[in-house]
């Protein structure tokens, strides 16, 4: 308090050259008033060199952390420490030079080095002659407000950057998508919920030799000569949006304008996106005319090849059987064995030819199922009996019975049993036992074929039913094309049953399959 009074007295004497007690008292009150302000207040003397501070109040000391002794006599700039390049500073300098008022927000530093934002209001004091004698600075610490403002600004910037990035990403992914749509070798149409065409890719336009203008905006059913106006297709397309059920592999054979008779494969999906793509339908159209023709030729080729291969085989088989008939009564055992071997290998060759044809039929979906009722137990017994003749040292043991007729394709089921038992014999060269077990499980019949052979590794168990799969370690030791189990699986599947294997390497395998006794259930795919 003392110091302040002293200072003010000094100030009074030197600054304003006042005389008289009344005035001095007034200044004391004024000085106390200034000290009770929360805003920091300073006065600088512009008549002295470098415009030094000649007065500061208590709030200024508190805000800056400096004491009056540190402050008086200095230019205000010491508060900026090394931070001299702020734009607010030049604003301030300009105002001082021009004797103008100014308000700036400037970064200042406390005595301990902490940054604080100073909201500075500076105004000049002019003498009667208009000369600027003093500047008064009123300062408020706005660090908190400034920080909040800066954070907000920062967030805004970040947000803007994010929006920019997102927009760019969207633009990129849009051009990415459209480049995919344009490059696929499949005609693509995007339809709105009323089946009006929103866009068509280049491949579509090329396939149908049409322009974008005569396609876009048209109803799907108006295109060309009404080629897509098919009642069943209409029904399926109508269901796409409400149910999301896609149209899968719908074939349209039609005499199209410009391109003639073609076979087209249609797939349609609901576009599962929100936003501008919502409730649109993607229709993919593929010209499979040529592919179907190649498939047909391949099937034709295979059936002709099998026919041509079987013809001389018939002759050989006939002659061998003739030999058996006319063999001398005293024929040696070797002679008989040789004849039997020829007969066996003729059968094997015949099976190989038949299997090739089966694979082709399965692939083209032409494997026909002749559903007839037959005596299952009798069929199994006869099949096993036939196999016994070529079983060699292996003993085939048949156990269990179904005890009733079953509905299915007898010759195909015989094929499955033949295959499984032949495999059991083939891949168990060191053992003598093959077990065939028939049982009824619910509305299914189950047949298991067990051997004590090589077994199948866990990894290979998953693949044995695949087409042309041959396990690495048996590849060279056992002949085969890797299609037997594939055919078995397809036959069982076509009947509505399942086939599987349980096996341990080195211990043997059990192949089992089930078939529904009443035949394939209606509605099963």
């Amino acid at each position, binding site marked *: 308090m003392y110091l302040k009074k002293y200072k003010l007295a000094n100030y009074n004497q030197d600054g304003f050259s006042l005389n008289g007690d009344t005035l001095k008292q007034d200044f004391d009150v004024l000085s106390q008033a200034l000290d009770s302000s929360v805003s920091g207040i300073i006065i600088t003397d512009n008549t002295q060199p470098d415009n030094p501070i000649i007065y500061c109040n208590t709030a200024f000391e508190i805000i800056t952390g400096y004491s009056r002794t540190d402050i008086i006599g200095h230019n205000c700039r010491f508060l900026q420490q090394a931070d001299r390049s702020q734009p607010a500073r030049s604003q301030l300098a300009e105002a001082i030079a021009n004797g103008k008022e100014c308000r700036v927000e400037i970064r200042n530093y406390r005595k301990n080095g902490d940054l604080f934002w100073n909201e500075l209001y500076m105004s000049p004091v002019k003498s009667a002659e208009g000369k600027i004698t003093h500047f008064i600075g009123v300062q408020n610490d706005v660090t908190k407000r400034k920080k909040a403002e800066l954070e907000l600004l920062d967030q805004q910037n970040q947000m803007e950057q994010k929006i920019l990035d997102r927009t760019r990403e969207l633009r990129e992914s849009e051009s990415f998508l459209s480049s995919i749509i344009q490059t696929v070798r499949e005609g693509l149409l995007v339809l709105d919920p009323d089946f009006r065409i929103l866009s068509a890719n280049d491949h579509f336009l090329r396939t149908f030799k049409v322009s974008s203008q005569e396609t876009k905006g048209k109803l799907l059913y108006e295109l060309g000569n009404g080629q897509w106006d098919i009642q069943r297709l209409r029904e399926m397309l109508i269901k796409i949006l409400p149910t999301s059920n896609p149209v899968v592999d719908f074939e349209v054979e039609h005499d199209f304008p410009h391109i003639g008779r073609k076979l087209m494969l249609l797939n349609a999906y609901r576009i599962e996106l929100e936003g501008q793509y919502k409730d649109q339908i993607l229709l993919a159209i593929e010209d499979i005319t040529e592919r179907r023709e190649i498939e047909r030729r391949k099937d034709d080729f295979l059936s002709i090849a099998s026919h041509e291969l079987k013809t*001389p085989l018939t002759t050989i088989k006939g002659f061998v059987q003739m030999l058996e008939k006319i063999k001398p009564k005293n024929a040696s055992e070797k002679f008989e064995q040789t004849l039997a071997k020829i007969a066996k290998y003729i059968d094997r060759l015949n099976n190989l030819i038949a299997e090739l044809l089966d694979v082709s039929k399965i692939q083209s979906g032409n494997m026909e199922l002749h559903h007839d009722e037959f005596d299952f137990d009798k069929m199994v017994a006869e099949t096993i009996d036939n196999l016994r003749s070529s079983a060699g040292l292996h003993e085939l043991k048949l156990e269990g019975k179904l005890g009733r007729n079953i509905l299915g394709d007898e010759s195909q089921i015989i094929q499955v049993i033949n295959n499984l038992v032949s495999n059991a014999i083939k891949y168990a060269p060191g053992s003598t036992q093959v077990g065939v077990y028939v049982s009824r499980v619910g509305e299914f019949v189950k047949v298991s074929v067990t051997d004590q052979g090589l077994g199948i590794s866990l990894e290979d168990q998953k693949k044995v039913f695949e087409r042309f799969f041959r396990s690495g370690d048996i590849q060279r030791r056992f002949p085969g094309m890797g299609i037997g189990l594939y055919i078995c699986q397809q036959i069982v599947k076509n009947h509505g049953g399942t086939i599987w294997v349980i096996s341990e390497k080195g211990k043997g395998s059990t192949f089992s399959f089930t078939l529904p006794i009443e035949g394939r259930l209606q509605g099963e795919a």
Partner: protein
Amino acid sequence: MILICDDDPGILEMLELVLEDTGYEIIPEANSLNVRAIVNKQVPDLVILDLWMPVLSGDQVLKMFRENPITKDLPVIVISASTDGNDIALKAGATHFLAKPFDVEKLLELVEGHLN
């Protein structure tokens, strides 16, 4: 008398040997176009007929038989390596069908069933 018509000379030769050995009289014919003339001359007791033959196929020969009152009940055993042979043969009016390659014994059984 048995008429055998198959365009494959191997099959013809084999069947001739097997059937003659059993004691049957055989007319082997590789060209199906000659069948009509042969039958017009003398109706056989039984016919063994292939399906896939050039110009006139086995099922066409069969239909011809069935349309003719003289041959409409003639026993015909169709032999074929075609996968749909069974369906085609029975539809065309075959008495029996045997898929190639067949067992000779099976064929002899069928033949005997008609001729004895």
